[in-house]
């Protein structure tokens, strides 16, 4: 079996497993594991977003928590106003409709990424990492010190938001929703990667001077990719807020940015299903070792070190071999 056929098998197994675990939990009446699977799906969605910037574009953003948190706050704030029945400061009413919240979360996060990208993409390497971190920290401290929406205490979402035709309060139905959105995002990622835009973006990661000499401006392509990346991660943030029914500045903390990078690296940078594999590993570690020792992150760190040193393609690379571009 050649490596691309093997990758499809690995991907299919991952998808099936992510579906089978909560299905088993549903039948066994273990709702905790359904919620866990939803968490994997939503973290994977956030990492699919980061994978566009980091994996396809080679932009090591250490500030994707900004988009994740902004998405979360969009969900929290809109639900807050809908619950209390008074409009936002800008006059708009709140809402509990997920499609509306998602559109707002993705749109605003995309715009934020566009603004941050415009300023950050003039730099590269360590400077880019630091400047994206700095912007995310600015937002973190802003959320921390903004008392209208809970400040450092965070903002609970009292009623889970609604999606037409689905009872989102039921863990299984909420999982199906998250799973479906993840599938759509993976399809979108695959489409993007195969397109002319993706071809230019991946080429810029490898050799920006060459691509400029062909007549394609690297800055523009990177910026658009960065905005798309931020929008997807923002969407995931809104869904995470609904899963936990709580948003707090912690969603914007640098540790969250780091977690997203860890997910992408563990799974396989630039690989279609890397985020799914990475999110599953992260959550599995949290559950399996989090109960045994409070130092579970130490063991996760060791695994990460192993991946970086010995398996650069992450779990997907380990199982399916190197990525090839026909």
């Amino acid at each position, binding site marked *: 079996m050649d490596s691309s056929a093997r990758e499809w098998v690995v991907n299919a197994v991952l998808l099936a497993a992510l579906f089978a675990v909560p299905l088993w939990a549903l039948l066994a009446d273990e709702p905790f594991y359904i919620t866990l699977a939803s968490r994997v799906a939503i973290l994977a969605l956030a990492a699919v977003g980061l994978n566009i910037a980091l994996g396809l574009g080679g932009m090591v953003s250490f500030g994707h928590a900004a988009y994740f948190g902004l998405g979360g706050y969009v969900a929290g704030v809109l639900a807050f106003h809908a619950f209390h029945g008074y409009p936002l400061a800008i006059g708009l009413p709140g809402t509990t409709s997920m499609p509306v919240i998602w559109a707002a979360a993705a749109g605003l996060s995309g715009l934020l990424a566009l603004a941050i990208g415009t300023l950050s993409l003039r730099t590269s390497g360590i400077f880019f990492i630091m400047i994206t971190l700095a912007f995310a920290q600015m937002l973190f401290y802003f959320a921390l010190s903004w008392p209208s929406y809970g400040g450092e205490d965070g903002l609970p979402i009292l009623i889970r938001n609604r999606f037409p035709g689905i009872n989102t309060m039921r863990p299984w139905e909420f999982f199906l929703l998250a799973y479906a959105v993840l599938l759509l995002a993976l399809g979108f990622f695959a*489409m993007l990667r*195969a397109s002319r*835009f993706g*071809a230019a973006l991946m080429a810029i990661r490898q*050799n920006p001077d060459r*691509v400029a*000499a062909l007549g394609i401006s690297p800055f523009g*392509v990177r910026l658009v990719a960065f905005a798309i990346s931020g929008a997807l991660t923002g969407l995931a943030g809104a869904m995470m807020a609904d899963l936990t029914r709580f948003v707090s500045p912690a969603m914007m903390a640098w540790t969250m940015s780091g977690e997203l990078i860890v997910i992408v690296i563990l799974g396989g940078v630039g690989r279609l299903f890397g985020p799914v594999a990475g999110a599953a590993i992260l959550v599995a570690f949290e559950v399996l070792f989090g109960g045994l020792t409070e130092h579970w992150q130490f063991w996760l760190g060791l695994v990460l070190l192993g991946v970086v040193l010995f398996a650069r393609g992450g779990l997907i690379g380990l199982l399916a071999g190197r990525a090839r*571009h*026909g």
Partner: protein
Amino acid sequence: MAEPVLKLEGVTRRFGAVTAAADVNLTLFPGEIHALIGPNGAGKTTLMALIAGKLAPDAGRITFRGRDVTALSVAARARLGLGRSFQVSSLIPEYSARRNVMLALQARAGHPYRFLFPVIRDRRLTEPARQILARVGLAGRASVPSAELSHGERRLLEIAVALALQPAAFLLDEPMAGMGLEGTRTLTAFLDRLRREAPILLVEHDMDAVFALADRVSVLAGGRIIASGSVAEIRADPEVRRAYLGEAAA
């Protein structure tokens, strides 16, 4: 004579106290190969970077196809039809030979903001890429990642990428470097025919190739063009012999 495709007037660039390009005047006319030679450190690389747009000049003007391009970016000049090959092969390492050429074809076709259709099934890219690779003799290596090609094959792929751009002028930076005798001979014959498609500004160390190909030769030394003329004139020029040929022939 016709209007020059490319024209440099008084182009100057300093790095601190070093003047890497000093008041350079240079023209490239349709149908010709204009060779640029000079000893190491003469400023050839700087001049190529100035023409391509990687460096901005401190003074002077660069006109390309009748337009002042002095302030334009690398990408904008490329879109106007300046097709560049690099001295050290500069390709997309993970991409196959085919995809390297397809990327150039895509760049020529227009903006990259197309998100829907998969490139590998796009016959407007795959078909011409196949023809271009066949033309430079890389048909059998089309699906090999460019990082895994031999040095000579990478040089040919550089040419293929430049061809795919169908430029109004070629800017070839030492295309013969490291090619070996046989490869140099083949490439010389190839460039000889290529000048009919678009004029070539050729920076080259291989004097046999330069003297076989060039319609005109300009000699760069210390950032300054010290001589310019036909192959015969350059060979006879005493200053050139002293600055460059003497050392190379010795």
